[in-house]
């Protein structure tokens, strides 16, 4: 798929630098490869189809740039250290093991869909001297700048600000040090805050600054219109893509290797969808992921037009649900 086509995929890409900016960055860092990055944590509830959305997108972006002759380094970060931060000490070891599972999952995706994503674990570099040094440098810059420190505070939920302040906001600085020298960072829109701070700091240490590319938010399946009506703000933020248990909604997610296809079809049938493109459309989202999967399996380079077809009325809501139910089973669930 051509870069422009990929970046303008309706229903998949929410905000992106334009193709010229990405090419400029690739030229700027040449002969080094342009670093494309997606990072995620995880939980005990399993690997979501929504993670595959990000993996396949990073892979497609890498392929599109390679076709134009650029060197590319597509990286998936499994943030095991970050995942362990929210669990008790007793669960720490279990979560590190779950990190192994997530790494294997990305490797499986590489095998099934012929992608070449490089998997990195946060634990591999977090204590390395180069990373600690980079983090120290960032901390010093922020501590000397009250506005930046205010921004850092905002990355922490209000209830945890005091604890984090005692820890010197170490976790937030780990995140920023991880992303500060990336080229293109793919993620959900809710990561905008970290990305913005990283760009502000990058200006001070004269690095290039990351380009953020946000895919559309993730929504639960099988929920009626009343659920979406009652959850104000869900349109902007959705639920956490890579954590199946986000908001305790794991029964409303497609979990690879666990979800029964018939159950998922029923969830799809029961899902709220609207022909208003500004409203959440969880079915279309799964449909686009399945379409990305199909295209890789069938080596089909054509653009993804499922959202265009749906919102222009070429496909009715019922047809969309039927198609997506079949495709998610065939091109995703049965492949694992």
């Amino acid at each position, binding site marked *: 798929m051509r870069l422009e086509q990929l970046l303008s995929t309706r229903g998949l890409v929410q905000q992106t630098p334009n193709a010229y900016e990405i090419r400029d960055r690739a030229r700027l860092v040449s002969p080094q490869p342009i670093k494309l990055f997606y990072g995620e944590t995880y939980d005990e509830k399993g690997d979501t189809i929504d993670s595959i959305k990000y993996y396949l997108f990073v892979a497609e972006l890498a392929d599109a740039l390679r076709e134009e002759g650029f060197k590319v380094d597509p990286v998936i970060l499994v943030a095991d250290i970050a995942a362990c931060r929210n669990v008790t000490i007793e669960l720490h070891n279990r979560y590190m093991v779950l990190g192994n599972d997530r790494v294997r999952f990305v490797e499986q995706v590489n095998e099934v869909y012929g992608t070449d994503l490089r998997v990195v674990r946060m634990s591999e570099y977090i204590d390395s001297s180069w990373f600690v040094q980079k983090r120290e440098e960032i901390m010093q810059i922020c501590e000397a700048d009250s506005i930046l420190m205010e921004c850092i505070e905002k990355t922490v939920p209000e209830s945890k600000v005091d604890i984090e302040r005692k820890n010197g906001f170490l976790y937030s600085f780990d995140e920023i040090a991880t992303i500060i020298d990336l080229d293109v960072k793919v993620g959900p829109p809710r990561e905008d805050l970290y990305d913005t701070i990283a760009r502000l700091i990058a200006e001070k240490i004269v690095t290039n600054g990351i380009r953020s590319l946000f895919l559309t938010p993730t929504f639960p399946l099988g929920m*009626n219109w009343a659920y979406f009506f009652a959850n104000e703000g869900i349109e902007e933020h959705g639920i956490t893509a890579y954590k199946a248990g986000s908001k305790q909604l794991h029964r409303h997610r497609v979990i690879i290797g666990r979800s029964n296809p018939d159950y998922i079809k029923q969830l799809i049938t029961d899902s709220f969808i609207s022909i208003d493109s500004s409203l959440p459309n969880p079915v279309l989202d799964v449909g686009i992921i399945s379409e990305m999967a199909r295209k890789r399996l069938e080596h089909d380079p054509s653009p993804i037009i499922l959202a265009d077809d749906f919102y222009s009325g070429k496909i009715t809501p019922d047809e969309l649900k039927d198609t997506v139910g079949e495709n998610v089973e065939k091109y995703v669930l049965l492949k694992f």
Partner: protein
Amino acid sequence: MADEERRKELEQIANEQHDVKRSARVKELAYYPEKIKEFGAKPTERFVRYHPNPSRLMRMGITFAHKDLESIADAMASNKPWAVVSGLNPSGSLHFGHKQVFDDLLWLQEQGADIYIPITNDETYVVGKAQSLAESRRIAYELVIPSIIAMGFKPEKTHIFVDSDYPDIYNIAMDVSKYLNLNRILGVFGFGKDEEGENPGTIFYRGGVQLAQILLPQYEEFGGPKPTLVSVGIDQYPYILLARDVARRKDFVNPSAIFTKFALGLDGKGKMTSSRPESAIFLTDDIKTAEKKLKTAYTGGGVIASFQKEHGGVPEICPVYTIRTYHFEEDNGVAEDCSSGRALCGSCKKDGIAQVLAYLEDHQAKLPEARKRINEYLLNTQVRSILR
């Protein structure tokens, strides 16, 4: 010369009136957003975006705000039991101001609600709007209830009661009143300096009976606690707060509310009300009376056609415009035609009159049959649970 002077005089009057009407529009447009802010209610736009088939009044922003509609939406979407309460005071026949509320109730019934309609003839009497309880009962049974039935409510999901003829409501009023005290009621309703002049019946009505009506569907005999929606004008928000307070203490579901804009009076002096008969089209008005009221109605237009063509009218404060759009049609450019000066009041009134008269003819033709069916709609369930 005299003609020229007369023309100038008329233009001056038109200018002055136009300024007054535009000022009124500013006030009218600001009123409801201010109330939303004041009471912490939410606009209904979000509901309209998500509901598969929202009511016309919601789409048009006439039912403009809500409190806690989320719990109702959940019941609506999941086919769980829920109820709607909307009472009215039988001081005379229903008018178009009532009709707009009942239009929304019909839609709510289509969405699955059981509709409870208390006819508050006790209030009518204690506040002095009826000479006797007997008169208020006559109005309820002869004028109000048949009109409600003629609007098309389903008997199996409609529960009408006249307060004085449904004494169980007073037992419930006693039950809920023990969760309140006089200070709280006076604080909410602000009887103020005249409170000593209020009769005890009024205070019991406001602090007991009104809340009993709102909470009635949640008593055991009606299936127990359930989401309950109250359809009221925004000025009645304090009742909702009191009812929510009592509901919490009784382990009931907190009542929700939707708020509807007031219908504008045809006399241009405020809201449509039975207390100013010329302000209202009553559903029992004969055709000639209704036509005359509309022909002579205050409008948002100018006193001379040339002025209106040039400066346009002010539809937001025009009762004819609101009757047309609240009751009969989506805006479809009516406001734009008015404010741009393309349409004048004469043609607008003509369209409005045709719509109103057609409705009245149809409605009044249904009344004889409706009168025969009153018993199908009357609530007679005895509430014994609080007496055990």
